């Protein structure tokens, strides 16, 4: 490998290249669906009124939302991997998304549907995410050491617990509520409401900027807590900021689309192979390519069983699960974290 210090020029190159890639993916995704559209003609003002309506009112908001969710989940994965010193950490696998889903579903059912608006779901999801993260962290850091295997098991247990709790709530819900909950929990994207788009439109870029500001500290934390401290990082404050930020991001995604898994695993590892491990380039590159990844996954979800569609979470899981196995098989990745 070659040494790749992050100079201003290199940062600009990486961000530009990933932005082009992300935008390209979004554009391709926007062309496909139950009705495929001619993007070039539409942007030129051509096409029928129905085509115009499909594209601008239904297709594009949905693709943009998929992209924002993809970007947000990808950088959450990056942050969790660095702070928990575990290459397999990811909001979905750690049970954070599960906690958020439970929070949101509980709020919906307890208020008899009154909290089914975004304003009700989002705070409940945030509370659920924070609770799940706290539980995982408490289990895994018993006696101070954050062991990689323990952490994953803690995630599995937390996820199982919240899914069981969610099933309980679903069991008590009416058949209509139950059906809606089921679709949402699988990680489905529909055309977003204005407020959903606004929430993600604000949260995702802000989260990306926030994590970018923490990126150098993440480089140091990936070397272990003590090393980070001795090199000048206020570890506790940094960890607090990043955990709250990632919980907010995950909650915003979960509140809008339900849990979408494996994005935070596949994208960061893929991007790392190309741009290296330095978080100053990894965070923006993962955000932009993660956006493209979920936009394309959503296009697949719309096309594969058209005119019906799959929840996007199923597509990302079908791609992500083999990637997880491949990562497990690469001993070096785990060995790096095994002595944390």
């Amino acid at each position, binding site marked *: 490998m070659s040494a790749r210090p992050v100079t201003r020029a290199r940062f600009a190159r990486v961000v530009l290249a990933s932005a082009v890639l992300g935008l390209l993916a979004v554009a391709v995704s926007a062309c496909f669906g139950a009705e495929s559209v001619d993007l070039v003609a539409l942007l030129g003002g051509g096409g029928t009124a129905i085509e115009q309506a499909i594209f601008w009112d239904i297709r594009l908001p949905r693709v943009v939302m998929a992209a924002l969710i993809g970007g947000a989940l990808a950088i959450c994965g990056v942050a969790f991997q660095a702070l928990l010193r575990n290459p397999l950490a990811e909001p979905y696998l750690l049970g954070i998304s599960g906690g958020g889903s439970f929070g949101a579903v509980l709020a919906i059912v307890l208020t008899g549907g009154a909290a089914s608006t975004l304003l009700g779901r989002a705070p409940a999801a945030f509370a659920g995410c924070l609770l799940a993260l706290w539980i995982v962290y408490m289990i895994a850091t018993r006696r101070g050491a954050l062991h990689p295997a323990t952490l994953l098991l803690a995630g599995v247990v937390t996820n199982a617990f919240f899914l069981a709790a969610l099933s309980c709530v679903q069991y008590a819900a009416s058949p209509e509520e139950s059906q809606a909950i089921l679709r949402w929990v699988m990680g489905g994207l529909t055309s977003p409401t204005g407020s959903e788009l606004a929430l993600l439109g604000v949260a995702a870029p802000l989260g990306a900027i926030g994590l970018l500001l923490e990126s*150098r500290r993440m480089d140091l934390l990936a070397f*272990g807590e003590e090393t980070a401290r001795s090199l*000048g990082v206020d570890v506790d404050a940094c960890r607090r900021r990043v955990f709250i930020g990632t919980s907010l991001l995950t909650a915003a995604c979960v509140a809008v689309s339900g849990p979408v898994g494996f994005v935070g695993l596949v994208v960061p590892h893929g991007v790392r192979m190309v741009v290296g491990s330095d978080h100053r380039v990894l965070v923006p590159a993962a955000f932009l390519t993660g956006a493209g990844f979920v936009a394309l996954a959503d296009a697949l979800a719309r096309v594969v069983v058209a005119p019906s569609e799959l929840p996007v979470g199923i597509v990302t899981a079908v791609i992500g699960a083999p990637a997880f196995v491949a990562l497990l098989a690469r001993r070096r990745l785990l060995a790096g974290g095994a002595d944390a």
Partner: protein
Amino acid sequence: MPDPGMPNPGMPDPVLRLEGIRAGYGERDVLCNLDLACAEGELLGVLGANGCGKTTLVRIASGVLAATAGQVKVGGVDVATLPRRELAQSVAVLSQDPGPLFPVSALEVVLLGRHAWQPAFAFEGPEDLDAAKRALDEVEAGHLANRDLTQLSGGERQRVLLARALCQGGRVLLCDEPTAHLDLRHQAAVFRLLRALADRGRAVVVVTHDLNLAAQACDRVALLAPEAGPVIACGRPADVITTDTLRSAFDIAAAVHHDTDGVPHVRRRIHDIPDLPDTDVIDVIDDPEDRNETA
């Protein structure tokens, strides 16, 4: 009576002072009533048996672990009151690092040493790259700049991490077993480098098991007690490293010779360990009835 934990008269006021330190993990004290100081321009060796608290001492001195009693002062300021960043500008540490999580080149590792001197989010400029390359050259690791740290041998890795501590700068350098994993040549080279760094004005504390190299390079050495307590002895190597002190510190009867320049030299043989605890030979058939049956 001169304080044994303090530098020799004539040395400037110590920049690093540990006063009445008590520290440990949970209920167990590892260090107790420990006083130690190191002045700028001084190389202080810390010696002692396994588990006597040498690494704990480094963690305390670098502010990574809080002492349960006593104070650590750097330049007269209590480290507990210093922000991390300012502390990192004064005190650099070479610790027993768990290593990186993902592949990362040696040059990138060394550049992490610049963190305390850069804004929270910054890019590497030419001066940062120069500093990192100089640090790598100083530890004879310039040729490793592009190599992945996780692929280096233990000794190469150790040198790269030392380069990171050099790149960090500061008035105090703490090294926890810098010669671990190093071959003969590089063990000597590291001590020569630490000596040079002290001569250029840094306060250098080195925790080591290599008594002979420490005796040659260090201005003073401190011998920690095997049980939590004050140091057994601290002072010039020739005064501290004696058969008697080694017996109390390591429970070994080692011969100490002196080179022509008066530097002590420890020679030990495998039979120098005086009283190995009597090992009970386990008799499998110790039950008389069993014995009868087999007989």
